[in-house]
């Protein structure tokens, strides 16, 4: 047995004084879960402590909470690990809070309907049958089915939604769970509308291009769904396979970035910005959208010039690799962009054949 302090952020909607912290002392084996600690407190010390839970085996997805500031399932987080995680961990204190980005109903129970399920419904979360529907079953290549099992593994716990950093500033962002769900159908060969699904999520100002690429959902997910990786695949398919040019500059930014690295070998920031707004050519900067952005950014540009952070001539010229190296870069681009089909190594599907070194 070991002694722990369970520090819980509580909230009772019937009390007027808002959320508050409460600490409970308990003794449990270090390999016991955070959920068992919460239930121990609930059973022994305070029956009013609210948490959702059911299976206690990391499959029902009910007990999503934040443990020491990180989203997790209470039932598959060991007390020993929880108490040792994070800056300032003392091996004894376990801080449990309700998940973020969703309204708290009571204590550790959040309103999943208001956020998570509403977003899931927004991505048409069912198969749109490809016609004609075969008399018997659809035959799907094994590889394709294995591919979508990664997103099918989602147990709808909301851990990724809880700490999504884009959603924190843009509550309308479709979010990691729903985007992963969208991939589950876009990547399914039986689905009739992958292009329409991609266009929908690319054109939505709060769709796939609103993801800030922070990896938070990848670390949050207890099931290895890697929602952000699925969002990046959706972007790749939308831009590179379906050539969907969206209103959010998503495809333009990606095209401009790639083209500039092709042309210069290095990033050319002063060209990237106008092209992301105005279109992927030297003339992009003369597009009205690029002009508006320029005006909007003038305060920042003026300060940067005043501080001699950037010299105008150098910024406009950009940096370029030496010819020999640029030729090598071109040759790599030609070889790979010239392939009939885009090749993508998916470690989820293939597995690591060797022990990867770090």
């Amino acid at each position, binding site marked *: 047995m070991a002694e722990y302090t369970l520090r819980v952020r509580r909230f009772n909607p019937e009390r007027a004084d808002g959320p508050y912290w409460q600490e409970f002392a308990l003794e449990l084996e270090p390999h016991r879960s955070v959920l068992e600690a919460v239930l121990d407190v609930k059973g022994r010390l305070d029956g009013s402590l609210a948490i959702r839970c059911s299976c206690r085996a990391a499959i029902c997805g009910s007990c999503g909470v934040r443990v020491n500031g990180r989203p997790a399932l209470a039932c598959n987080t060991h007390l020993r690990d929880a108490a040792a995680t994070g*800056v300032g961990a003392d091996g004894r204190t376990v801080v449990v809070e309700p998940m973020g980005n969703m309204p708290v109903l009571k204590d550790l129970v959040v309103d999943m309907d208001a956020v998570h399920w509403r977003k899931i419904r927004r991505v048409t979360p069912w198969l749109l049958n490809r016609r004609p529907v075969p008399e018997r079953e659809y035959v799907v290549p094994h590889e394709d089915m294995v591919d979508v099992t990664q997103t099918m593994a989602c147990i709808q716990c909301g851990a990724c939604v809880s700490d999504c*950093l*884009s959603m924190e*500033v*843009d509550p309308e962002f479709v979010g990691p769970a729903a985007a992963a769900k969208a991939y589950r159908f876009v990547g399914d060969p039986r689905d009739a509308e992958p292009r329409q699904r991609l266009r929908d999520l690319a054109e939505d100002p*709060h769709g796939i*291009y*609103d993801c*800030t*690429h*922070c990896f*938070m959902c*990848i*670390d949050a997910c207890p099931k290895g769904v890697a929602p952000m990786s699925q969002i*990046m695949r959706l972007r790749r398919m939308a*831009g*590179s396979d379906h050539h969907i040019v969206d209103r*959010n500059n998503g495809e333009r*930014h990606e*095209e401009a*970035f*790639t083209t500039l*690295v092709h042309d210069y*070998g*290095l*990033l050319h*920031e002063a060209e990237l910005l106008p092209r992301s707004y105005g279109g992927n050519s030297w003339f992009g900067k003369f597009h009205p959208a690029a002009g508006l952005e320029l005006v*909007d*950014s003038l305060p*920042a540009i003026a*300060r*940067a010039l005043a*501080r*001699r*952070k*950037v010299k105008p001539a150098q*910024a406009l010229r*950009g*940096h370029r*690799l*030496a010819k020999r190296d640029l*030729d*090598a*870069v*071109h*040759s*790599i*681009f030609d*070889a*790979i*962009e010239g392939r009939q089909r885009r090749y*993508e*190594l998916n*470690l989820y599907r*293939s597995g*690591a*054949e*060797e022990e990867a*070194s*770090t």
Partner: protein
Amino acid sequence: MKVAYWPGCVSRGFTPELHDSMEAVAPLLDLELVPLDRASCCGAGVIAEHNQELADTLNARTFALAQQVDGAELMMNICSTCQGAQSECQERLDASSSYRARVNATLAASDPGLSYEKGLTNKNLLWLLVEEIGLEALRAKVRRPLTDLRVGPFYGCYIVRPSDRLGIDADHPRDQYLHWVIEALGGTVIDYAGTYKCCGFPIVTMNKEASLKQAGTHLGDAMDAQADCLVVPCPLCHLNLDLQQPLASKAVGRPLAMPVLHLPQLLGLALGLDPRQLALSKHVVKPTSVIDWSTAVVGAPAPA
């Protein structure tokens, strides 16, 4: 220690003070930098979004060039984003010999003699400071301790997540190194909400409002926690937190004045370099709360 040095694009573009300060501070750390001048952009995750094999091959070329540097113990970068984007490519390259052979075939055709061999060590300056130089040795080099300087660590997403790819575990708590380095330099670490959050830069062209709100929120949180400055190991974070700070201020509707230092600048100050050698004058938000310019003494200002 000799390292194959990858400065990245932005440190030579819109944040030239980063590259300059790294070069200034390297001799004090006994670091010999061999710049990878022939290498291309890491793609910052964006090229991978376009074509994963392309990003992997361009980075394999960089890794191969690093492996050719005579006497270099490892490859070092000064950009969280480069670290993250390159680690992602390296994970795939190291996981599959057939994929590596495929990528190396493209490399050989474009640049005869170049080939990536599994197992390159590529470390951000922050990791190198703690794991190669060591905090004890670093402490011994401090000439001007950052006493009373209240510093907010801002890591940047790409060197803290995903933790398994980046080798973060109980033996290598790399997500705490910035805290440790600030303390080793004599500064005080500020606890504020933004430490591990996203600066918002990746979506600045897609959703500018959300992007600036992220930057503005973290800067405001740091101000509320009475930080004198933030320190970042990532120039892209620096762009959104410093260059865009006037716009971020509008986005969150509050005045902001939070100096943001690059990691080598903070090191340089503590190791005794003159602020001008560290190009601290090139920031959009003047680091006056960090430096008394008249005497070039590091310290917090007297309360107003």
